[in-house]
């Protein structure tokens, strides 16, 4: 059944798995992607938000989205989650005993090194001016790689349309072009979400933390480093995980994927070397195979089969 030599080989294969698992985690020499110079962003503070949802309605208006008003019979807007006509939403988190609660604003995080942009086959998603992640329809295949890739579950797809679009917050770039602030920040009565340069927002967030010791979870700004950094930043009095912000570590997902692919492909050298080696080996044995087939054809009187 299994002799000693085979056992050693199996152990070797196991060691490959073990070692590769370690190496894959430890070695990632790629320098982290830096936010662009002109990066803008949003800063949302859970301690200021009163959940009025003015930003939700303003977003729909500014982006010509049909308000989701199915449950209210068309009286007012009440989307339950981000969807193909909701780019921005306020949700309420409540713990099971009801003692801990918080509002939470969801929209695109505009990652510094976005996974959706990495995943998109024909560059329909791109990180452009102001570091805004935006979608252009001309080359989009509708493959939904962006939806699989986004750790925040942001991009939405028009499932019922014949020419479906990918819908996500683009930080009101049409308004930015007119020197106006994004709709959600412009209408917020409590300045719970503010717009600005990413560096300025980080300074503001840190001064709020310094001025209010103990108010914010871990005295941390979510998005400064999380998942390689984001341009939408969060201050929260509750653990970020409760608000649906995943613990991603400081490396971006995109950087991890590039690292694995680079290890395998070595700038495209591997496929070329592999192909050449395969040509040499198959070419060598092909002659053997042909001679053998020709011999058999002679001997049997049947046609040679390749």
């Amino acid at each position: 059944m299994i002799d000693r030599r085979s056992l050693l080989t199996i152990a070797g294969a196991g060691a490959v798995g073990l070692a590769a698992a370690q190496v894959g985690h430890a070695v990632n020499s790629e320098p982290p992607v830096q936010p662009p110079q002109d990066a803008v962003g949003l800063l949302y503070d859970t301690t200021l938000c009163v959940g009025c949802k003015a930003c939700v309605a303003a977003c729909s208006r500014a982006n010509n989205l049909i308000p989701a008003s199915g449950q209210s019979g068309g009286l007012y807007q009440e989307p339950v989650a981000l969807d193909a006509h909701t780019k921005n939403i306020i949700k309420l988190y409540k713990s099971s005993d009801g003692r801990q609660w918080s509002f939470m604003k969801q929209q695109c995080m505009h990652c510094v090194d976005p996974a959706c942009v990495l995943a998109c086959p024909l560059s329909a998603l791109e990180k452009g001016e102001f570091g805004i992640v935006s979608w252009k329809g001309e080359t989009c295949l509708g493959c939904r790689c962006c939806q699989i890739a986004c750790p925040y579950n942001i991009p939405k797809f028009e499932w019922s349309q014949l020419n479906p679009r990918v819908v996500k917050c683009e930080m009101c770039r049409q308004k930015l072009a007119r020197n106006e602030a994004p709709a959600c920040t412009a209408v917020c009565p409590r300045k719970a979400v503010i717009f600005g340069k990413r560096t300025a927002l980080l300074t503001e967030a840190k001064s709020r933390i310094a001025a209010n010791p103990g108010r914010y979870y871990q005295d941390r700004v979510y998005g400064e480093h999380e998942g390689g950094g984001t341009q939408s930043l969060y201050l929260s009095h509750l653990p970020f995980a409760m608000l649906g912000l995943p613990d991603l570590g400081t490396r971006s997902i995109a950087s991890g994927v590039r690292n694995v692919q680079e290890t395998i492909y070595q700038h495209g050298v591997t496929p070329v070397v592999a192909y050449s080696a395969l040509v040499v080996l198959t070419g060598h044995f092909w002659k053997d195979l042909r001679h053998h087939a020709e011999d058999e054809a002679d001997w049997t009187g049947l046609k040679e089969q390749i």
Partner: protein
Amino acid sequence: MNKCWRRMLAVSSPVLTPAFWLMAGIAGLGLVLCLWREVAGLAAATAMNDGYSWGMFKNFNVTTLTALGSGGYALGVLTYVLNRRKYHTLMRTALLTSILAYTVGMIALATDIGRPWNILHMADPFVWNPHSILFEVALCMSAYVMIALDFENLAPLLERLEEEPFPQVVRELAGYAKRFVKAIYPYGVALALALPTMHQSSLGSLMLVAGPRVHPLWQTPLLPLLYVMMAWVLGIAFVEAAVMASCAVWKRPLDMTIVESLTSLVSWSAIFWLAVRLGDLYGRGQIAAALKMDFYSRLFLVELALIAIPTLLLRIRSVRMDAARSFVALAVLMTGGMLYRYTPTTLAFQPGAGYRYFPSVTELLISLGFIALAVVGYLFTVKRFAILPATLEMSIRGAVPGQKEKQAA
């Protein structure tokens, strides 16, 4: 009777059997529903949603079933690179299963995407995103289906065109073409081996980009390695299963020497796969999670049992020599392997609370239709072309004009 496979020979029985019509019916229904999906949209035809954005088409018909269609790749490596000449008689069966599995996979991919007309932009290098795994998969798979596999599958077609009743000019042209194919064969074969190595591993990398949304029992930087190794195991196992079933149905002798040695190879490959899989789990400190007995741990243990038990049983020579028993063991192993390939894409994919996915009836029928279409292609091709392995005796009998029909009658 001598059961030694030496050549390839067409099955001499009629193509249009009840089984053929049944399969054609299922395939036809699937294709009609496929057209309906293009008109009605993805929401009407499938259960896919903003959480589970990929459904049966991509995750089952492409990611899972092209692994079964990797026989042309795995047996190609054995025959042409490792010079295991004895497997040559199985090459055509392997290449046929590959081209069929991949062709229907590509149709599934085209059905799945929401804006299919934009495929034209694949021809525009300026919009290519070389970092995108799906881009690489799409490019390598198209090249494999549209160039490499067609090239490899040319031989039986050209042989057929060389025979009566085709006119003299066709026969001569086929003869030239065959000579050309023979001359450049190693270059084509090498391409047909390099491309699947890339896209079968990339099908694993595809889920890397989902990061923490794939449960840590499956999410690992080794996904590409584990996926390509599993493609190798499943590819060989499926060719074996297809040949064993074909020989049983069309009353052909089974060359147990070849079958047994391939089965042995499958089980060895699966043992290596298991070693890498478990080594990786240990290396990432996931053994405790594997034994936690929650949903994911149970799923993992089912997968492990479906792969490990038949693999170990197939280490016993008497099991391998028994066609029926090894067929069952291979079928169980294939189920486990397919489960492994499918799980990270759907079962262990965690898009967040509030999302649920179970394929809709239409989606299932379309998916089944693609499989039936491949079966139709198989039934037709093995009866019209010299694909399935046969003994020398049968081939000599089959080569005498008029004998084939008599034998069938």
